[in-house]
């Protein structure tokens, strides 16, 4: 009971906040990425982690205690306190317990964990326009259909889906050719290249002295004034391929599906262009806490100004009477 009273006491929160704030300030001086360093401390450092746990506990107990005592007039601040504690607890739990696995997949790939990607659907525009270096090109309606434990599940970027493997979502997507590479007698296949937005170059080190650079090839180029715009065909794309031997460019060409590029013992054949998705599987017990905390924080912040004004109105008469009396006395 004493420990509970100590944790719930009013003076402890500023002290704990001060310790955490001081740690962050110290990290801003010492580190270029202060929050990253803070997250590492929250995960590994006993004192920092202990302080955060104690703060989370204090906020939770304080909020619940208020509601328990029937102080409904302070419901907003109680919601804020409890939500903040849930959010903080969520971060702490997530930092230690999260397991993440991600993989770029296309329908022709084998299973990833217990999941088999069946189909990718996306609205990829036929043409993409890049003006200068900028484009507003994105893939819309990206959906992956996966089979897991005899069930077919549709996974989208957001909201994530809960499956038996964990939380699953699509993190990214794109289109890529399948490139069959032969160097001497060695054969390999390169696929799922990151070539979007158009203009992006994928650099691949192949097991020889060669380096390969692949990018989408512009179908048309426009000039207005000194500005250049490039139009890319995404339905039947062509690819710019540069093969370097050390620093020397040995091949520079544009190829389409079915075409080949060769140089001495080096042979590259362009296969079918197919879409890919980056599927992320996360196991984390804190996701519910984090979402609960965030929703509570939003609700509490919306309600809090009303509670604050009400409390102020109730508190002020006594203070004002004192001040007015004091003021009259000085006249």
């Amino acid at each position: 009971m004493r420990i509970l009273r100590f944790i719930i006491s009013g003076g402890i929160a500023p002290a704990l906040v001060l310790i955490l704030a001081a740690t962050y300030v110290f990290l801003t001086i010492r580190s270029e990425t202060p929050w990253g360093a803070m997250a590492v401390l929250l995960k590994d450092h006993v004192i920092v982690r202990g302080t955060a746990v104690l703060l989370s506990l204090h906020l939770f107990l304080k909020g619940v205690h208020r509601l328990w005592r029937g102080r409904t007039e302070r419901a907003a601040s109680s919601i804020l306190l409890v939500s903040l504690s849930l959010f903080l607890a969520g971060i702490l739990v997530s930092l230690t317990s999260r397991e993440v696995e991600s993989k770029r997949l296309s329908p022709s790939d084998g299973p990833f964990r217990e999941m088999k990607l069946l189909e990718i659907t996306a609205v990829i525009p036929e043409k993409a326009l890049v003006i200068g270096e900028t484009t507003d090109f994105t893939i819309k309606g990206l959906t992956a259909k996966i089979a897991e434990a005899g069930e077919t599940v549709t996974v989208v970027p957001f909201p994530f889906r809960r499956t038996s493997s964990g939380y699953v979502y699509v993190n990214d997507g794109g289109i890529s050719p399948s490139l069959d590479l032969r160097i001497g007698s060695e054969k390999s296949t390169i696929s799922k290249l990151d070539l979007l937005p158009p203009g992006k170059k994928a650099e691949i080190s192949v097991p020889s002295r060669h380096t390969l650079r692949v990018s989408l090839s512009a179908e048309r180029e426009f000039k207005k004034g000194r500005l250049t715009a490039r139009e890319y065909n995404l339905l039947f794309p062509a690819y710019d391929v540069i093969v370097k031997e050390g620093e020397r460019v040995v091949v520079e060409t544009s190829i389409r599906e079915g075409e080949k590029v060769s140089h001495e013992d080096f042979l590259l054949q362009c296969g079918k262009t197919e879409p890919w998705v980056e599927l992320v599987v996360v196991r984390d017990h804190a996701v519910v806490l984090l979402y609960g905390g965030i929703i509570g924080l939003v609700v509490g912040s919306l309600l809090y100004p009303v509670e604050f004004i009400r409390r102020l109105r109730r508190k002020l008469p006594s203070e004002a009477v004192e001040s007015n009396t004091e003021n009259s006395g000085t006249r």
Partner: protein
Amino acid sequence: MTSFYVSLREGIEFSVILLLLVGVYPHHKKRLIVSALLIACGGALLTAFNFPLSGFLRKAFTGLLFPSFVLLLFLSFMSREGIIYPLIALVLTVLLPSAELTSVVLEEATLKGRWPVLSGLAGLLVAGLFFMTGLSFLKRIKMKQFFRTDGVMVFLASFCFVFGGLDEFDASSIITVLQQGLYRLLQSFVPFIEERLLIPDGKMVVTFVSEVFGYLSSQRVAMALAACILFLPPVVAFVRLLLTPEPETDAIGKRAEKRKIVAVYIDYLMKKGTPLALSLAVGIVLLHSANLAVRPTYDPEPIPVVSEGDAIAIPLKDKFGDISDGRIRKYSFLSGGKTYRFFIVMRPDGEVVAVLDACEVCPPRGYVQRGDHVVCTYCNTPMPIQTVGRPGGCNPIPVPYVVQGDTLALSKGALITAHEKQAGKETGSVLR
């Protein structure tokens, strides 16, 4: 003389803050003065032992200043007398760089081999006299009638925002630095939370939620947060003051007595509201200047050009850069003892335009570039770069030109005519 002025200025800044505290809390007078002297000497000694400033100490000063200012503002929520002790500690922390700066300037002046120590001491002596004179005035003014504890803190924080801290070190306002600090935090914290909430961060997948999170880590949100930190405490103190209930006068029979009580109440609101209103005004000015600092203006030096016959040829790509970078490039053409200024810019639609560095309406003070706008330096009107080349209003006056390959050519005669026309209009408007 530099050391005299610096020590005088820092001494007066120190004295004003101390006088305010002593005036509002006279029973803490001795403690305040002794601790202020200790901190001044401590700051000077610290600098003397660590001159030139080591990287860590300098960073620590700047690092400590944010939380000090912010804490100072937020302590104003707890308007209790007991807060005086943390308040003293905080104010003195904020003042520490003043003592340090004085010491640094004195040291630098010493290296130049003048008489800096004596003139520096003279400056401090004058500041000391200012403080003693102020102390004797304080007895008559009764500072307590102007300040409640929250008012003191809000006012002191505003004073420190204007005169103290980082401004003196690197000419960037504390709000700009605060905004940058918050931006740095948001830049790493928001993606961290985004990842924890399982929101995709892939470049090709854009969802509504990822757009919201992208916005949350922007410069704009950092500035909004800095504004909240700056304005919330004075606004709350103001609301508190305005919600002070009117005195009950129903039971009082005499009208004169009623009027007297109401007058006391209004007087109370006016006196205690004035420092808060001042602090708010200071905050608005600071925020505006910080906002401008976050989006700095670009005002290149005009490059002198000459004509060949009637033609002035401007290369669009040369050692001064490429016009496709979207930045304005200014030129000056000298003819008959007069300078004609103009600039060229590439609009977002890819067209290069040439215009005078003046408009039809204002005196020809020229333009600066701020992001996607050019701003008239006389009337501060921003014009989108897309509209540059169109005549009228405060738009820069267009000049006839042709683009041939990588060169923009304009006529010397047309430039002078456009300029003379502008000068004539301006004289006309002044005469009217």
